[in-house]
């Protein structure tokens, strides 16, 4: 029937049909490599993790059982999981706002004065570029209970020395502080780029309109104009925070003392690679993925619209 219609159609229409088809084929063949790679490297493993999360498979085991939501039910009653989730949120809650605010502060200070700009930029960026493993050794020395520099300073104020990483009360804030130190530089560089993009005319207009104090300039021009940068920095900081918490904890505390610094990624690592409970680790991974997904969607959908004026 359709063939008959096609045959009856005037030649021009037929040519247009053929043209549209050829265009579609070209489009798909051009998109094919990227699509295949995405399926192979992103969607495939994610789908695998979803399947795995519904089984009790252990790494290396020959058999596996379909247990439905069993892993998630176990998770709900698992005190380590809840501790780990809570610690992760505290870590993110400390690192993201402080690293963003301090990064913005550093960027504003460096941009305000041209002298030594390159030096300060490099100094603040160094932690981002350096290997965490090497830096962790430096931090262990600094935080050492008997000869660490940090305790020397604290003692000068009349406070007795603290074993920062071994004390359950201070371990998580200490790890977070190192996380801030590491994240600050990248945020600073991103904010500096954002500051450079603000047109000087707006500051001039603000000065003539009467908004000429440092605070008014910041409030009327800098802060609103940094909106898009701020949004990007917030999301990047949160996603990187989730990931970097693992590096720091694995190197400095191994989740101790007594699970005080146990974070989500470290729990996944332990379940998956120390206890070989691959199914359970996959279920934890899905929880982690959900957080990252929410953050990404937040950036893409909600806030992008409110901070871009163009």
């Amino acid at each position, binding site marked *: 029937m359709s063939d008959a219609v096609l045959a009856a159609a005037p030649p021009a229409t037929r040519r247009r049909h053929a043209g549209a088809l050829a265009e579609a084929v070209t489009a798909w063949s051009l998109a094919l490599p990227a699509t295949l790679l995405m399926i192979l490297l992103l969607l495939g493993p994610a789908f695998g993790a979803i399947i795995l999360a519904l089984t009790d498979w252990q790494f290396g085991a020959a058999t596996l059982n379909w247990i439905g939501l069993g892993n998630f039910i176990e998770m709900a009653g698992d005190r380590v999981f809840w501790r780990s989730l809570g610690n992760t949120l505290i870590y993110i809650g400390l690192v993201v706002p402080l690293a963003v605010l301090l990064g913005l502060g550093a960027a504003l200070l460096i941009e305000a004065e041209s002298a030594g700009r390159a030096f300060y930029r490099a100094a603040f960026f160094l932690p981002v570029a350096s290997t965490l493993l090497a830096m962790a050794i430096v931090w262990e020395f600094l935080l050492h209970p008997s000869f660490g520099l940090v305790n020397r300073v604290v003692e000068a104020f009349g406070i007795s020395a603290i074993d920062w990483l071994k004390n359950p009360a201070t371990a998580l804030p200490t790890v977070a502080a190192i996380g801030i130190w590491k994240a600050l530089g990248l945020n600073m560089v991103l904010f500096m780029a954002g500051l450079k993009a603000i047109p000087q005319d707006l500051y001039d207009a603000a000065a003539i*309109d009467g908004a*000429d104090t440092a605070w008014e300039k910041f409030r009327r021009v800098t802060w*609103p104009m940094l*909106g898009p940068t701020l949004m990007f920095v917030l999301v990047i900081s949160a996603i990187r925070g989730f990931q970097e918490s693992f590096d720091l904890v694995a190197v400095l505390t191994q989740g101790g003392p007594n699970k005080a610094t146990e974070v989500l990624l470290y729990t996944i690592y332990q379940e998956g690679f120390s206890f070989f409970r691959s199914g359970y680790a996959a279920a934890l991974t899905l929880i982690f993925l959900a957080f990252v997904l929410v953050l990404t969607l937040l950036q893409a959908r909600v806030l992008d619209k409110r901070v871009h*004026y163009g």
Partner: protein
Amino acid sequence: MATVGISDIVKRFGTAAKAGPENAAVLKGVSLDIAHGEFLTLVGPSGCGKSTLLRIIAGLEFADQGSISIDGIAVDAQAPKQRDVAMVFQSYALYPYMTVAQNIGLPLTMRRLTAAQRLPLIGNLLPGTRAAKTAIDAELQQVAASLDITHLLARKPSQLSGGQRQRVALGRAMVRQPKVFLMDEPLSNLDAKLRVQMRAEIAELHRRLKATFIYVTHDQAEAMTMSDRVAVMQHGEILQVAPPAVVYRDPATLAVAEFIGSPKINVLPASLRSDRSVEVLGLVLPLRLAGNIGSQIHLGLRAEAFDILPVARPHAHPGVWRAQVTHREDLGAELFLHVQLDDGGHRLVLRSHHAEAASLVVGSPLGLRPKPDQALLFDADGRRLRPALDIAGDGIVLAWDAATAEARQAGMAQSGAVRV
């Protein structure tokens, strides 16, 4: 309304340690007095220092030397907001996150509300905030109505066209009723048609507000059409300050003559003969120059400073240049002819009209006679020379004829001497 005094302003960029061409002064001692309610335009090629001068008047930039006064009071130590000036920027510089109403109202908000009253939410609870905000709203409504942008008040700048943004920027400047309006190339980002329309609107606005306007542009058409006086600037100096018609007809220097006027003035090399008359490309003009000047001078002729003569027979018209049409620009109401002179290859642009140029196409020969009374003479350094028009003389003659006549006179004198 206010007078603005600019006295001997010098501005250098870069540090004193770095001597060199890039450290040269951007403004080299500029002085200018602007009257109450005057529309003064600073015009010049880019990099001439006109925008820097405007920014110094606004207080956004500081002069290395010299002083700015408004209404006779030196304002050099004052911040921009204390000077009571408003500025319109080329980029409009609207706050993109604010609505049009908030943009226009901001100068009033910043001046009339205290820091505490400006706080969001809490500010509204303080005494007086409501009343002040209502007053501000009424005033910005009035300004918006006068600019015909009331329907745009709730929009963000990104939702406006270029012309609408321009009006909002004007509104933000007007709302405070400042003493002086400063405009930094406000029409440069608009398309040609809108630019012509806004030109008339800004001139009309100036008449209505009766405020002092200082307007910066590189477009000589804007300078000519809007201003009471034009200050032509080049290389950090003011070359001439005069009403537009004077700047056009009576330029002080060759640079002014070349910058003002479209199409650009035709400049030909000329020389001064021993009898103080001016010879240019084989013609002697009935002009007499006094004073000690070099023999090499420049002759400037505007596009309309020629008589165009049809060439029927060669040598039919003495005292005429012969040329060929190389290009015809028909603008409807008027017509420009680009011609090349037959000897020497000099190219000229002539203003003509359809009746006169009907038979002239590309390649047509024509005769040209400069109008001596419209000739502008400049010395080798570009300074204006003011010749006396020799009405009693023979009009334009061929240099060869003039030389023969002189020789004959000299011969007669000589023979007379012999006879005596």
